[in-house]
């Protein structure tokens, strides 16, 4: 059988499966190699599960902030900006029950976007990266066709609640099914009840991911908050309906 195109590679990184689906035939595999190599490096540096990672050492106080890499300081600055913007609903220090530093909520999106830049610089124009259900898109899967992104049904793992057609940007979803009590409101310290899942679509995966996390924790106010950010829109799924607000 002769098949024209579509190259998919999947690797286990950052505790999840990351897939790169490159549709540009002329872009060499080395570009995908480089993108995965970068993701592995980012994982080694930012993992909270690796005791010798830079994040773990910073969390234990073995490193001062000044001694941290530029990348880690960038990530922490981004996290601080998001904490301020979300009025504390996105907080890399309060995400964990023990209050320890866990920048995972911003690292994954950021690292995947950096990986996308590597592909861009290699000439890639049409590809998708799926990092554990958070999706970054460029171009089209086939000429004239949009990427079709299903949003997982929050109650049925085997169903899709909605399909978005996109030619770029990012889609991130936070769901109660996924992280359970991990997402808590800093104001009530309890899991929010409003959303079974909340999906954010926008230009940047880093922000879409963080907005989804924060808006989920905000409860019913979350959709409107996402829409205050130009270019971002949110879809919330409750037990009764799919609601969405476009920004």
């Amino acid at each position, binding site marked *: 059988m002769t*098949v024209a195109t579509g190259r998919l590679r999947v690797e*286990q990184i950052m505790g999840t499966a990351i897939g790169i689906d490159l549709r540009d035939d002329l872009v060499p595999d080395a570009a995908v190699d480089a993108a995965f190599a970068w993701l592995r490096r980012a994982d080694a540096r930012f993992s909270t599960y690796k005791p010798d990672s830079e994040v773990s050492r910073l969390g234990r106080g073995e490193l001062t902030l000044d001694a941290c890499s530029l990348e880690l300081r960038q990530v922490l600055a981004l996290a601080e900006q998001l904490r301020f913007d979300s009025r504390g609903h996105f907080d890399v220090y309060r995400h964990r029950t023990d209050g320890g530093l866990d920048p995972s909520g911003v690292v994954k999106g950021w690292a995947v976007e950096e990986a996308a830049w590597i592909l861009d610089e290699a000439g890639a124009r049409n590809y998708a990266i799926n990092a554990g259900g958070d999706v970054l898109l460029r171009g089209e899967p*086939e000429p004239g066709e949009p990427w079709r*992104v*299903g949003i997982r049904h929050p109650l049925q*793992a085997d169903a899709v609640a909605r399909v978005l057609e996109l030619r770029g940007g990012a889609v991130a979803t936070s769901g109660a099914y996924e992280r359970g009590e991990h997402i808590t409101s800093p104001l009530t310290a309890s899991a929010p009840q409003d959303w079974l899942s909340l999906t954010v679509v926008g230009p940047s995966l880093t922000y879409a991911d963080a907005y989804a996390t924060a808006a989920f924790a905000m409860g019913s106010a979350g959709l409107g908050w996402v829409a205050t950010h130009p270019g971002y829109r949110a879809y919330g799924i409750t037990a009764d309906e799919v609601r969405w607000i476009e920004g």
Partner: protein
Amino acid sequence: MPRRGAITAFLTAVGVVLLINFKTPSQQGLAAFSRQTVTGTQSTNGSAAPSASGQPSASSQPAATSQPTAAATPGTQTITGPAISYFFGTAQVQITLQNGQITDVTALQLPNEGQSAWISQQVEPMLRSEVLSAQSAQINLISGATYTSEAYRESLQAALDKARA
């Protein structure tokens, strides 16, 4: 933009995380990779990285063997993926294609000890129907799914890579 009319058509398109467009002569998409949550026994970072055995990633070196079935009609092809081992056990799948369309997916091996056996009983029909239905759904990716049956996926992916070669 969402298309309301499309929703119902996809309610049966199951937890596909990343679906490659498997370019068959009929240009059908094909579910090639997803991670299917089964019991919630694996959660987030760390524990959900069962690649400790150093298995190659799905597409790296597929050891799939292609063996056109003897009694099959013309255009029918049976491809066996490699056995992929995880700490849960070993998974191996076989796909049957007819004129480039997946017509059947069977698990030759799934974990069969203790809890893994229970998982296997639940997951196999689900994954199987997922692959079969998603190829017509033409969804490229799914947002919001964090799943665990990588072994099944990797074996399936390798079989698909072989089919595309």
